[in-house]
C-alpha cells in the first residue's frame, strides 16, 4: 500500500521531525499530521502539529477526522535520563495502548502502523547470543523499568497485530542512537573526558546514527514491512575501540563485583551512569540487522562512522554552543504560513519538483568526455584503472558510466573510492 495520510506521534523527537520533513517533500503524500506534548524542534513546511497528550479519544478523533491511513509511533522512551521511570511507563505502556486503540476498530482507515521500539527489549545477559535476531526472546525476565516497558509495549503491539490481521504492523527495534541531536545517557557517558568502565570487561556495542533512525522510519512508511525488524548500523565495536575512536581515556575504575552496590558512590561522584546501564556496560549487545537490509534499506553510516560523527560533534560542541537552537515553534506563525490566503502555497510543490529535477540535470548537461577508448574496456579493466584517477575525474567517470553502460560493479567501485577519498580528507 502507499501511505498518503500519515500521523506521526512524537513529532518533537529528532527522528519524528526528520521523518515529517522527509515525508512532506513527497507530493504523493497528501497530509502529514504530527502529535506530541511538546512542539516540534525542526522547521516544517506543511506538516500540521497538534498538541495532544497520548489520550486515546483525542488521537482517535484525529485519526478518524483526517482519515489517517498510516500511523508512525515514535514516542517510546528508551532512556532513563529523559524522564522519570513513572512518566516513562505512562508514556511507553499506557501511551502505546492508547495509540493502538485509536488505530483499531472496524471503521478505522488505518492500514499501517509503524512502531518504534528499542533493542533494550532483548536486555543484556551473560548467556546472550552475540547477535540477536528478531525471532529471539530475552532469556530472562526484564530487570529495569524501561526494559519491562519495552516488552509490555511490544506485546500490546503484537496483540494489536493479531487482532487486525489486515493491518501492516512494523515493529522496529533500534539500537542506541547517536548523533548531534540525540541526547541520551550514552551521549552523556561518552561525552566524559575520561570514561569509567568496568574493570576486566570490554563489552560489544552497536549504535545507529540519528539520520539512519529517521531513514529507517521513512523506509518502513514507504515499504510494507510486516513484522519485527532490528535497526542497527553495520559493525559491532568493543568499548575500547569506541573510546579509541573518540579519543577518550579508558578508565577501568568501576568494580567488577558488586557493581550495583557501588552505585551510590558512582552517583555521588557525579558520573552520568544509570543503574540500568550497568548490564550493558558489562555484557554489551549485538544485533543481527540483516532482515531489514534484505528489504532494501542501506545504512548511511556504519557503527564506526557513527562514532566518528559523534567525535566530530563533540569536538565542535564547545565552539557551537548556544548557536544550536535556530528554530522555535511559534503557533501563530505556523498557523499564518499554513492558513493565510496571502501565502502563496500552490507555487511551492512545483518549485520543489523543479528543484528535484534540477538536481540531476546539471550532471547530464556537462557530462564530460570519458577517456579515449573507454567504451572498449570491460568492467575489470575499468576498475583496475580507477586507482589512478583523482576525485574530480572519478566523479566525471561515474556520471558517464551511469549514463551509458551503467555497470553496477564499476559504479560500486567508483563509489567505494569516492567515499574513501572523502574519509581521508576529513
Amino acid at each position, binding site marked *: 500500500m502507499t501511505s498518503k495520510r500519515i500521523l506521526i506521534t512524537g513529532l518533537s523527537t529528532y527522528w519524528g521531525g526528520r521523518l515529517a520533513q522527509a515525508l512532506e517533500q513527497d507530493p504523493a503524500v497528501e497530509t502529514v499530521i504530527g502529535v506530541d506534548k511538546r512542539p516540534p524542534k525542526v522547521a516544517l513546511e506543511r506538516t500540521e502539529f497538534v498538541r495532544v497528550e497520548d489520550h486515546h479519544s483525542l488521537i482517535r478523533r484525529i485519526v478518524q477526522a483526517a482519515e489517517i491511513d498510516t500511523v508512525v509511533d515514535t514516542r517510546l522512551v528508551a532512556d532513563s535520563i529523559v524522564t522519570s521511570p513513572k512518566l516513562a511507563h505512562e508514556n511507553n505502556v499506557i501511551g502505546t495502548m492508547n495509540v493502538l486503540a485509536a488505530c483499531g476498530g472496524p471503521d478505522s482507515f488505518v492500514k499501517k502502523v509503524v512502531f518504534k521500539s528499542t533493542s533494550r527489549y532483548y536486555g543484556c545477559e551473560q548467556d546472550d*547470543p552475540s547477535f540477536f535476531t528478531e525471532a529471539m526472546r530475552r532469556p530472562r525476565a526484564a530487570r529495569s523499568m524501561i526494559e519491562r516497558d519495552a516488552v509490555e509495549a511490544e506485546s500490546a503491539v503484537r496483540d494489536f497485530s493479531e487482532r487486525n490481521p489486515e493491518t501492516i504492523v512494523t515493529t522496529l527495534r533500534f539500537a542506541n542512537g547517536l548523533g548531534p541531536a540525540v541526547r541520551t545517557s550514552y551521549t552523556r557517558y561518552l561525552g566524559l573526558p575520561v570514561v569509567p568502565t568496568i574493570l576486566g570487561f570490554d563489552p560489544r556495542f552497536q549504535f545507529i546514527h540519528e539520520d539512519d533512525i529517521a531513514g529507517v522510519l521513512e523506509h518502513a512508511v514507504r515499504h510494507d514491512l510486516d513484522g519485527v525488524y532490528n535497526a542497527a548500523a*553495520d559493525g559491532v565495536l568493543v568499548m575500547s575501540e569506541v573510546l579509541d575512536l573518540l579519543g577518550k581515556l579508558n578508565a577501568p575504575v568501576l568494580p567488577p563485583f558488586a557493581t550495583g552496590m557501588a552505585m551510590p558512590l558512582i552517583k555521588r561522584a557525579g558520573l552520568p551512569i544509570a543503574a540500568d546501564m550497568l548490564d550493558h556496560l*558489562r555484557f554489551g549487545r549485538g544485533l543481527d540487522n540483516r532482515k531489514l537490509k534484505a*528489504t532494501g534499506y542501506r545504512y548511511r553510516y556504519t557503527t564506526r562512522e557513527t562514532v566518528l560523527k559523534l567525535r566530530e560533534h563533540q569536538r565542535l560542541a564547545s565552539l557551537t554552543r548556544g548557536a544550536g537552537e535556530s528554530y522555535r515553534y511559534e503557533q501563530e506563525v505556523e498557523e499564518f504560513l499554513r492558513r493565510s490566503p496571502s501565502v502563496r502555497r500552490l507555487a511551492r510543490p512545483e518549485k520543489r519538483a523543479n528543484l528535484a529535477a534540477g538536481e540531476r540535470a546539471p550532471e547530464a548537461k556537462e557530462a564530460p568526455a570519458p577517456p579515449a577508448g573507454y567504451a572498449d574496456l570491460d568492467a575489470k579493466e575499468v576498475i583496475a584503472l580507477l586507482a589512478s584517477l583523482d576525485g574530480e575525474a572519478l566523479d566525471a567517470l561515474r556520471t558517464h558510466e551511469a549514463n551509458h553502460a551503467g555497470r553496477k*560493479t564499476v559504479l*560500486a567501485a567508483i563509489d567505494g573510492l569516492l567515499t574513501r577519498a572523502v574519509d581521508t580528507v576529513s
Partner: protein
Amino acid sequence: MAESTGRTPLRDIAATPDALVPTAPPSGQELTAAEPDLRDFLPGIEPERQVDDWGRSERVAGLFDKALVDFYYHLWFRCTIEGLENVPSDGPGLLVSNHSGALPPDAMMIMKAIKDEHPRERDVRVLVEHFFKGYPGFSMLLPKIGGVAAHPANVHRMLYDEERLVLVFPEGAKGTEKLFKDRYRLRRFGRGGFVEAAMRAKAPIIPIAVMGAEESQPVFAQLGLVKKLTGLIYTPLTPTFPHFGPLAALMYLPAKFTIRFLPPVRTDDMGDEPWEDKGLVQTVSHDIRATIQEELFDMVGKRKSVWF
C-alpha cells in the same frame, strides 16, 4: 527513498563486488514471496578496524601469539601435527576435540596449527562457556583471541553464514576438571548440541585427538573451598596451583603434544532436517566420541615417552 540511496558505506569492493549492489525489491509483497538469503547481507569488512564484530582483535591475538603461543607450540610442547589435510580449505567445518589440562592448552595449539601450517592459514574460532563472559578479565581477553560464547545461534552464524572453522570441546568443563587417574578417558559429549549445529549448517565435523595436554597440567584433586572463594568454574590442585596463584596458568609441564586431525564426517547427506531426529543426533555424537577415544588409545599405546 531519499534516506536510503546514499553511498554505501561498506567498501570491501575487491572481495565482493556484487554484495554492494543487491537488488532491492520494489515493494514489500515480493519480499514475503521469496525469502532472501540473509548471507548476502552480512556486514562488510572495514579495513580500518583492528577488531571484528565478534570482538576478536587482530592486534591482541597477534601479540598473544608472539608472546606465548609461539613459544609453547614450537619449543615447549613441540607439537606434531598429523592429518591436517582433513581440515577443509574452504567452507565451514566444526572441529571437535578432546579437552584436558587444568587451564587447557589444547585450544590454542589446535588454532595455532591450523593458522600456521594449513595451506590456507585459516582462522579458527573456539567456543567458550558463557561463564567466561561474566568473569572479569576472561571476559575481556577470550573474545580478543578468538573465543566466542557457545550459544547455538553463534555457532550457526559462524558455520552457516560466515563459513568459518569452529572448534568445540563437547566435554566442556567435565573434560578439564577430570583427575589425572582418568586421563585420556573421554567424558560425556554434552547433549549432542554440536552435532545439531553442524547438521543445521550442513558443515562437516572434523574429529581431533590431542595427546599430551593431559600430562602438561595434571589435576590431582578439586579444591572446593578455593572454588567458592574465587567464583571460578573449578579450581584444581595441580603441580603449580593454587600455590603459584594466577601465574600457574602459564606453568605447564613440557609434555610432547601430538594433534591428529581425523577424516571429516559429512552432515549434509543425512536427509532433510536430520537435527529433528534426536536418535540420529545422539548416534552421530556417540560415534564421534568413540572415534576420538579409539584414536587416543592408539596414540597413547604407541608413544615412546610422555616427554619426547
